[in-house]
């Protein structure tokens, strides 16, 4: 077998495995959300299908697939179907640049545990999150429904506002590392030099912005039931609705993975290399470390959703433009000054 063919197979299998794991994780984070919310509200939650309700996601998927697909009258049919696909494509393809482990050696091949090692990884992430707005905006417009339109517009305004502070928080990290590569950023966080310790303010800004970008409570105004019925996906049913649902949870997982990569040391387990373990075991442990950190953050997302009430719209905008943005700029300036003094 020629070398390029082997490389092609490796890349394709990496994509298949990562997307498979990601989609399974998305299905089970829906289950986790229902169980955790039940626990927080002193209920039992779904526990009928399979042991402890573990087969519930499969049943849900089958139910959604079998439902009738309704397109509202006078809606733009093409854009109405295009919008959920944009949402899901954008959120799934963002994962391509996230390193979920260092390298793994199989036979004499050294495989990098990252789908695409591009040298503009962070910018790719920011670009993809900014494209996510389209799914929401277009679905709101094409549904031919006032509630949907308002939800879509709210969401685009919210995403644009919080993208800025997210970008500023990321800029401080770029300044510290001098690189846009996610791999370099993870490598520089070896040991306990995690960016959450070096950049606590940036971490908080990024975390809050990530909540706003994924439309999760306390920032879930685009789908505020009391005011907007269901928000931008009011008119969606069957699998199209399911795609929006999947995209939301995929966004949560991708955001958690990004927070892990940028602030929590990515796949780094402090001083794992010094224990003298076999390299294969080290690689697997690194993947487990990454998965554990991401799982923790996903649970944190769920925990916050069932604890904190929703913001009012003006509060949301004030927080974004009058608190987060100045804080982000201040954080950037302070970081720049500190780096300047440390270099000279």
């Amino acid at each position: 077998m020629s070398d390029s063919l082997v490389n092609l197979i490796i890349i394709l299998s990496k994509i298949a495995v990562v997307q498979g794991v990601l989609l399974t994780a998305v299905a089970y984070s829906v289950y986790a959300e229902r169980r955790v919310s039940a626990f927080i509200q002193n209920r039992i939650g779904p526990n009928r299908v399979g042991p402890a309700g573990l087969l519930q996601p499969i049943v849900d998927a089958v139910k959604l697939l079998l439902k009738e697909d309704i397109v509202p009258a006078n809606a733009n049919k093409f854009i109405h179907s295009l919008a959920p696909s944009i949402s899901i494509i954008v959120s799934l393809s963002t994962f391509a640049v996230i390193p979920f482990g260092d390298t793994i050696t199989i036979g004499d091949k050294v495989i990098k545990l990252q789908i695409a090692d591009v040298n503009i990884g962070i910018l790719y992430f920011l670009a993809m999150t900014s494209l996510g707005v389209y799914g929401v905006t277009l679905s709101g417009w094409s549904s031919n429904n006032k509630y949907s339109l308002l939800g879509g517009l709210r969401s685009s305004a919210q995403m644009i506002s919080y993208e800025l502070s997210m970008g500023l928080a990321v800029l401080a990290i770029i300044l510290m590392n001098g690189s846009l590569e996610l791999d370099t950023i993870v490598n520089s966080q070896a040991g306990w030099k995690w960016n959450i310790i070096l950049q606590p303010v940036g971490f908080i800004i990024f975390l809050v912005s990530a909540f706003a970008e994924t439309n999760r409570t306390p920032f879930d105004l685009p789908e505020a039931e009391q005011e907007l019925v269901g928000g931008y996906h009011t008119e969606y049913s069957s699998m199209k609705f399911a795609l929006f649902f999947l995209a939301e949870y995929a966004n949560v997982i991708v955001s958690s993975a990004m927070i892990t990569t940028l602030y929590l040391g990515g796949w780094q387990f402090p001083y794992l290399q010094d224990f003298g373990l076999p390299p294969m075991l080290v690689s697997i442990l690194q993947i487990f470390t990454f998965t554990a950190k991401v799982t923790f953050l996903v649970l944190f997302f769920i925990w916050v959703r069932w604890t904190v009430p929703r913001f009012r719209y003006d509060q949301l905008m004030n927080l974004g433009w009058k608190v987060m943005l100045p804080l982000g700029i201040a954080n950037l300036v302070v970081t720049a000054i500190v780096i300047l003094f440390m270099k000279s």
Partner: protein
Amino acid sequence: MKFDLETVLFFSLAVLAVGSAIMMITRRSPISSALFLILNFFTVSGLYLLLKAQFIAIIQVLVYMGAIMVLFLFVIMLLNLHDEGKLKEKYTYRKLTAVLLSIFLFCLLGFTVYFGFEGKFKVMSEKALTMGTAESLGVELFSNYSFPFELASFLLLAAIVGAVVLAKKKFE
């Protein structure tokens, strides 16, 4: 001409770019026009990638597709235009002349580019291969081109301040 992956990609992207540009100016509904413009930006960003200019490619997606076009869509949706489909275009001599002149200009430019550059630039130079990365672009911007760069930032700042002043006047 050899048919490697790059050529195939180039021609499919080029056809998509031209096609989406034509679709954009011929659609009646403003939303469809805006969507075709977004598709056009996307294909152009792909062309940048083929030229090894990754930074510009991703900035194209980030700024034009992710920010500017979102605002375009936003405005079109808020205005809620429905009467565009009923508008009728009148064909006058002035328009006919404009069409003929633009075809002439297109041919002129096409011939100049085709015969002027034929045979040259077949091989990408060493410098061009690394030019597109963020690092080399940054070095160039902050050394050789720092004055125009700062000038552009002043222009943008003035535009921002202007926008704020105009918006404030309306609410007072």
